[in-house]
């Protein structure tokens, strides 16, 4: 699956639109940035409630191209700007992290 495939999900709202598309082959769900750094992979979707600029810094470090912010958390403007600079996509969703993970898992299974 590619990042664009997420655009078809009505549960996801695209917040940072200026991104480079990439192939996604897995996901990582965590709110601990050290944990993300230690274990997430570059081709993962990151599912988190950490809607701030350091999440972008960690994503950049790991090579993650797309962030899904759960629970409709407010996304600050500096986070959007930082992500735009790195061409990282940000989606927001009303779903919680479990439901978002299930959703991404289903999309991945569809291919």
């Amino acid at each position, binding site marked *: 699956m590619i990042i664009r495939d997420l655009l078809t999900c009505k549960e996801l709202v695209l917040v940072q639109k200026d991104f480079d598309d990439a192939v996604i082959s897995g996901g990582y769900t965590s709110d601990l940035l050290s944990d993300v*750094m*230690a274990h997430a992979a570059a081709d993962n979707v990151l599912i*988190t409630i950490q809607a701030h600029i350091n999440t972008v810094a960690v994503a950049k470090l790991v090579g993650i191209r797309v962030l899904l912010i759960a629970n409709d958390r407010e996304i600050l403007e500096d986070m959007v700007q930082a992500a735009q600079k790195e061409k990282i996509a940000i989606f927001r969703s009303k779903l919680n992290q479990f439901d978002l993970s299930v959703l991404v898992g289903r999309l991945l299974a569809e291919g």
Partner: protein
Amino acid sequence: MIIDKNIPIKMEESTSLILDLIYRLKIKDVMSRNLVVALPEDPLDHIKALMKQRNVTGIPIVKKDRLLGILSIDDIFKALDNGYIQELAEKHMSKKLVMLEEDMPLAFAISYFDKFKYGRFPVVDKNNLLVGMITSRDINVGLLMAINKEVARMEELLAQNTPVDAQNIRKTFRIRKYDFEHAGNASNRIKKLLVDRKLDPRDIRRVAVAMYEMEINIAVHSEGGSLTVAIDNDQAEIIAKDAAPGIEHPELALQEGYSTANEWIKSLGFGAGMGLANIRRVSDEFEFQSALGKGTVVRSVVRFKRKKENEDDH
């Protein structure tokens, strides 16, 4: 009243940056436009009250934006001493006006403060209408802001000009307390350098993770510190140092999950007690020293795997 308001910038001794700035900046860039003015028919005690209220020591006397004179706090002292504080401004204001024009370079204002010993100068536009006042404080503030901008630009240039193919790189980054906004900058800068060297992505990530964790540790737990990175063909050595406060139980700090971070830091996704453990995990060599009151030093070495055959390897 003679006030020493000289600005000790001697043109012949100044650096080219300062000279460039004082000629590039115009008076209108630094003057204050927030004018406190009075009319010629205002009594002196009204002006005295105005000075007190607005915290200024000189007030231009204007009529229809045209400058007629200036009343300084010195004139008010004289009026109080000699008992004519009820009289009108026009009778006692100073009419010997030395004015500056808004489009003049800042250098003119600096030399005026040198030449005329006034505390402030009125600034007029091309039509001779009053548009602002300039004090030596305005000049200091304006120059400081411009210098700050220039230095930031130079630092940026310096960072860009660091030759990426130089074999040995040594850089030091300052990390400030609670500055999460810039945490990760050092790590990302070095990551970029290593990507340019076409190192194994796994090694690059190990260096980046070690550095980012160190940056966050210093920002979260210390009063500020620094990261020093030394890179050669074979390895990256990263040393994080902070001066205070140090860790009370260094032996516990290495345990995954042990954390002394407060709640708001945890709510940002930091302080999970994984930082040092993460650094140790990615390092080929790892040292950690800390004592309460003495600060903390963390040293990590990441050795690079040999480059691929087609790389220029000596």
